[in-house]
Every structure is written in C-alpha cells, then in structure tokens.
C-alpha cells in the first residue's frame, strides 16, 4: 500500500514534465517558442553556409568541392539523430501513451528521410570528383541507404493504417525492432566491406583533425541543421495535432448522423 503511494508520489513529481505532452499545452508552448527557433535556425544556417562557402580556403587536392562538406556532414548527422529521436518518442508513446509523442515521431520521419536523402545526394555529388564514381558500396554509404529504407517503411506503415492509434502503436513497435536491426546492419556492412569513406574527422583526440578554419563553420552548421530539424518537427507536430483534431471532429459528425 505504501509502496503504491510512493510510486504515485514519484509520478506526481515528474508530472510537470509530462504535462507538456498534453496537446493543448504543447500547442501553446510550441506557438511561443517557434518564432525564436526559426530565427536561431536561419541565423546559424546562414552563418555557417556563408562562412563555409566564401571564407574558407580551398583545400589543396580537394578543390572547391570540399565545400559540400557544409551540407553533407550536417545532414548526415541530423539524419541519424532524427531516427534516435523517433525511437525515444515511440518508446514514450508505448509506455506513457502521450499522443503528442507519437505524433512527434510521425512528424520527424519525413524530415529525417529528406535529410538522409540530402546526405546521400551530396555524398554522391562529392563522390564523383573524389572517387570517380557516384556510388560505391562503402559501409558508411550503404548503411545510409538502409536507413533510408527504414524511413520509407516507417512512413509507409503510418500511411497504410487508418486508425491513428493503431498506426501509432504499430509504427512504434516497428521503430523499436527496426532500430535494433539498423544497428545490426551498420555492424554487418562494416564487416562486409572496408570502404573508401572518411573516418570521424570531428573526433577531438585524433591527430588528423581538419584545420580549425574548416571546423568552426562546420560545427555551427551542424547546430544549424539540428535547429532546423527541431523547428520542422515542431511545425509538423502542430500540423499533425490539428489534423487529428479535424479527424476527431469529422468522426463525431459522422457518428452524429449515423
């Protein structure tokens, strides 16, 4: 009895956090925050891209194609982070059943997919001058292709199911199981082919870190794309909430005349 009491208290303590999962509160909060987010996104993106494109030296044997890095690396980073965010949101939905969380996962998927596609496309454009081919079966590249497929499947499942709660449940289960397999695939492709792609150049302990003049705008760019992602997810979640309201209203209307 006292045990139950305690857990209830514990839950109360965290309630202030969960309350943001209430659609009404979320709408209010996101409405307040969005203008700031948009401003921050624009500033950091413009800063990093302008800096990156116009104020960095051309690398000796890379030519000006090196500047593609300012789109390529941030989109790639965001593409992976987006899937993690969806995984967390899906788990929250499965465990706490907050609708906003499921809708946020739904909203993040197309953004993540576009980011994956952008990373693939910029990578391909870069690969042409660098490796002399648009595409190679390099592990890094390949696992992005697989990630792209996961995004596609996730979105297709959302689209195929009519009942929104069922869709949220099933896509969440898919996100959880899919994450495990995506991780496995990452390992598997590494095992399968050693590849051409750069290692992690951003890691701080490595000797061969790229020069600071490239590094700073790149970090700002990664931040900018992250902000862009968060902004898009906010906007799209708001849209999804509104769509759900419309859906609920329509259903009510239908039930009324049945």
């Amino acid at each position, binding site marked *: 009895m006292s045990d139950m009491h305690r857990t209830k208290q514990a839950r109360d303590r965290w309630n202030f956090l969960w309350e943001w*999962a*209430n*659609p*009404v509160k979320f*709408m209010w909060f996101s409405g307040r925050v969005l203008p700031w987010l948009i401003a921050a996104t624009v500033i950091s993106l413009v800063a990093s891209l302008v800096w990156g494109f116009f104020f960095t030296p051309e690398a000796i044997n890379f030519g000006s194609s090196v500047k593609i890095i300012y789109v390529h690396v941030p989109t790639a980073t965001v593409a992976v982070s987006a899937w993690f965010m969806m995984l967390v949101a899906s788990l929250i939905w499965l465990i706490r*059943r*907050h*609708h906003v969380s499921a809708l946020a996962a739904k909203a993040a998927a197309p953004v993540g997919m576009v980011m994956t596609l952008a990373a693939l496309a910029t990578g391909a454009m870069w690969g042409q001058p660098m490796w002399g081919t648009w595409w190679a079966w390099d592990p890094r590249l390949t696992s992005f292709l697989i990630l792209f497929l996961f995004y596609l499947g996730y979105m297709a499942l959302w689209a195929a199911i*009519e*009942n*929104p*709660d069922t869709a949220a449940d099933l896509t969440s289960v898919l996100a959880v199981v899919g994450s495990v397999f995506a991780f496995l695939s990452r390992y598997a492709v590494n095992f399968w082919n050693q590849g051409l792609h750069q290692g992690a150049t951003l890691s701080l302990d490595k000797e061969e870190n790229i020069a600071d003049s490239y590094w700073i705008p790149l970090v700002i760019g990664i931040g900018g794309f992250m902000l862009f992602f968060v902004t898009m997810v906010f906007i799209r979640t708001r849209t999804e*909430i509104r769509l*759900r*309201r419309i859906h*609920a209203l329509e*259903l*009510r*209307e*239908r*039930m*009324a005349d*049945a």
Partner: protein
Amino acid sequence: MSTMTLEARDLTVSRGGVPVLEGLSFRLDPGQVLVLRGPNGSGKTTLLRTLAGLQPPMAGEVSLPPEAIAYGAHADGLKSTLTVAENLRFWARVHGVHDIEPALDRLNLQALRQRAAQNLSAGQKRRLGLARLLVTGRAIWLLDEPTVSLDRASVALFADVVRAHISAGGAALIATHIDLGLETEIFDVTPFKADPNAPSRTPTPFDEAFA
C-alpha cells in the same frame, strides 16, 4: 459455475477512437440469455468485441472470469480446404476438448462431416460455425447475428442448443435482428447511444485536445 458472471459497469465502447455506446451497465448470470437489440450501426458488434477482450473499452470496466468466453462472429474461422470434421476437431483440440461427435450431432452435421468447408452452402457453413461453440467448453457465449443465412429448421436447432447450454449453467449474449423463439430478456442498446457532441468524456486529460 457460480462465479461465471459477466458484468459491465458504466462501459463506453468506441470505434476508431469515437465512443459508440456509453454508460452501459448490465450483468449476465449463469443460466441467462440476453438478446442485444438495436438498429443497424448502433454498436452491437463493437460491444461484443469489447466484451470478448478483442478491443479495449474506452471507459468503464468489464469483469469476467478468465477463459470463460466463446466469441462467435460472422467470420467463422473455417478453413475452406479442411473438412467439416477437421475444422471442428482443430478447435476442439485448441480448447482441450476431445469429442466432437456431440457437436456434430446437435447441429445436424453428421451427413456433411467429410465435406470440405468450401463446398458448403451459406447456411451449412453457419451451422458449422455454431458447432464450434460447443467444442470450446466455454460457459459464456457472445454471439453476433448467429442465425444469418439459417433456414427456420436450423434456427430452431440453434435455439435448442442455446437452451441446453443455459440449462447446463451457461450464459449467452446474442446480438440479433430476428426472433429466436427463446424465452429471453431483451437488452436494447439504443438508449445508450453516445452523444458525439457531448463534452469530452475520455479518461485521460491528455487527450482532451483531440476529442
């Protein structure tokens, strides 16, 4: 079978997230037949699926003994390439029952026992679906329009089967539009039709914004 009572308290059932019937309270005791009535689309199927545990109630609660329910719907779960006897034997084994002969006898299926289910007429299929109930060994039957496609003789046969079931201490909740000839209590769901424009009555405040 004294605890074999199905009870619904202040139940709200929903389809696609919208309440269909609300504030339902009733109990079904052993030896009782309750006939669900209501016009097309009033929510009888939804209610039965909820009671069978196939979908969660939107509000309120259902209390029933574990593993006591046999659900029978339009779809009979028949495999068209298996024979009548094979179909029935499968369900009997799933429920740990061994003898399918009484069920075949009682629904007049002995002559058809070697016939593949795909070669049955609509009414014969239906009879087989009803025979399945007998091999579940379950006490509470939830039946959704069980007499569809049955001719008069078969409806009478079915009524006998239900009568035998309740006199053995079973119970049945039957949604139907026709008169079964059972001395039944009628439970009309029409008054419980949910008002879709009423203020939100969903359980958690989190959903408020959607409803």
